[in-house]
């Protein structure tokens, strides 16, 4: 059963995320993929995450396919113009990749090459429309292809950043451009997230698109504090920071928080699955999934 079939069915979806290394060591991906095998329905592979050069997401996806894990490649607009995006997408489709998450991308000054030229030829909405057009059998130039790719198109949504209404408008645009599923930013503010999803259900958007809630297990209070300071658009409740600071074993407290969030969002109307992002902590994935009761 492919990820596409699962999205189209009613089952609860679990996605993971792997960050490729900053080296050419493919074994890192192979090792990390074992934590997701038979647990996650599909695994995101970040594309030069935090604007640092890493092993390419399409190459990593090929390794995952060999390991029997279904990949979702992330595609950012920061590093490619429309020519490169089309050729990379066709290349990925030829290698057997079936899922793509369309992102705008972190700005280059956040990474280790702040002097770089950011491309941003397309934005994420236009990238979704581009993939949809490739799916329909045409290149951007209007030329017909002999064989069309069949991508399942993902998009990101941030329920926590201002202006909130504009976020919903943008989500509507992404759906209209042709997105099939949405992955949200990591939830560290349940109250706001519940308000957001209620709004989505009210508008009926949850029937048009599968929404996967983002969950990020963290190892220490420091990680949360650093995220709050350095990652714009992430909202972290003081409650979680205090809990992590007080805990004698911060790692198990981190797991506990993640499991709690998963259990809450699982019962919300409009949520079709979770997207777990164990940033630099892939080994914790089986524990979280088991404790949250998502898989036996």
């Amino acid at each position: 059963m492919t990820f596409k079939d699962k999205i189209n069915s009613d089952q609860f979806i679990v996605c993971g995320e792997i960050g490729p290394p900053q080296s050419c060591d493919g074994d890192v991906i192979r090792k990390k993929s074992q934590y997701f095998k038979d647990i996650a329905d599909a695994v995101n592979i970040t594309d030069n995450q935090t604007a640092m050069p890493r092993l390419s997401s399409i190459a990593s996806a090929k390794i995952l396919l060999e390991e029997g894990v279904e990949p979702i490649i992330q595609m950012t607009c920061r590093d490619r113009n429309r020519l490169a995006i089309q050729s990379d997408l066709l290349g990925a489709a030829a290698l057997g990749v079936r899922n793509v998450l369309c992102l705008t991308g972190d700005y280059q000054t956040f990474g280790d090459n702040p002097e770089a030229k950011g491309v941003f030829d397309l934005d994420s909405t236009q990238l979704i429309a581009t993939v949809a057009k490739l799916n329909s059998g045409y290149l951007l130039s209007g030329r017909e292809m002999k064989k069309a790719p069949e991508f399942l198109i993902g998009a990101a949504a941030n329920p926590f950043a201002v202006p909130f209404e504009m976020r919903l408008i943008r989500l509507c645009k992404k759906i209209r451009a042709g997105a099939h599923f949405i992955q949200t930013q990591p939830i560290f503010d349940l109250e706001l997230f519940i308000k957001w999803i209620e709004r989505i259900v009210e508008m009926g958007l949850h029937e048009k698109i599968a929404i996967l809630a983002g969950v990020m297990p963290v190892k220490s209070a420091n990680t949360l504090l650093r995220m709050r300071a350095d990652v714009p658009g992430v909202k972290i409740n003081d409650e979680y920071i205090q809990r992590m600071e007080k805990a004698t074993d911060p790692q198990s407290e981190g797991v506990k928080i993640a499991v709690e969030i998963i259990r809450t969002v699982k019962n919300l109307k409009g949520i079709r699955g979770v997207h777990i992002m164990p940033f630099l902590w892939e080994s914790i994935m089986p524990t979280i999934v088991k404790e949250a009761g998502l898989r036996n």
Partner: protein
Amino acid sequence: MHSDLVTYDTPPISERERRFSRFLLFFEDLIKVPIFRCQHCGECILSSTGFVCSQRCPKRLRNGPCGGTRADGHCEVFPERWCIWYKIYMRSKFLGRIKLLYKINRIHNWNLERTSAWLNVFKKRIDAPVLFVRNDKEYEKLDDFQRQN
């Protein structure tokens, strides 16, 4: 199906027209640069973005804010600046032009960079500006999605 969002079917620009475009751009700049800080994309979408130039965004986003807007509404890249899409939303709400934010802006045609947007509208290369919006109150409720699809 979504070809209208991404394709261009624009007539080529002749040398004569380019010259005229440059001439016109001088006068366009006199107005648009001081008032809107125009970035000369040649594909003006000012009317659909509450008359705030979206091209002042560091990522030059044409379809809404990236995920990084700070809690105070400032830009993730330059914390001292406003997120331009935050300003666009606020201005659109103030002017009653929320409806226009739903429009998906097409991929930027870089051939039109540094050409006169006025001439491009006249030559039907880009959409004409929308001057008046009616019944925007309904759109503020964000339930128009059903109507559009």
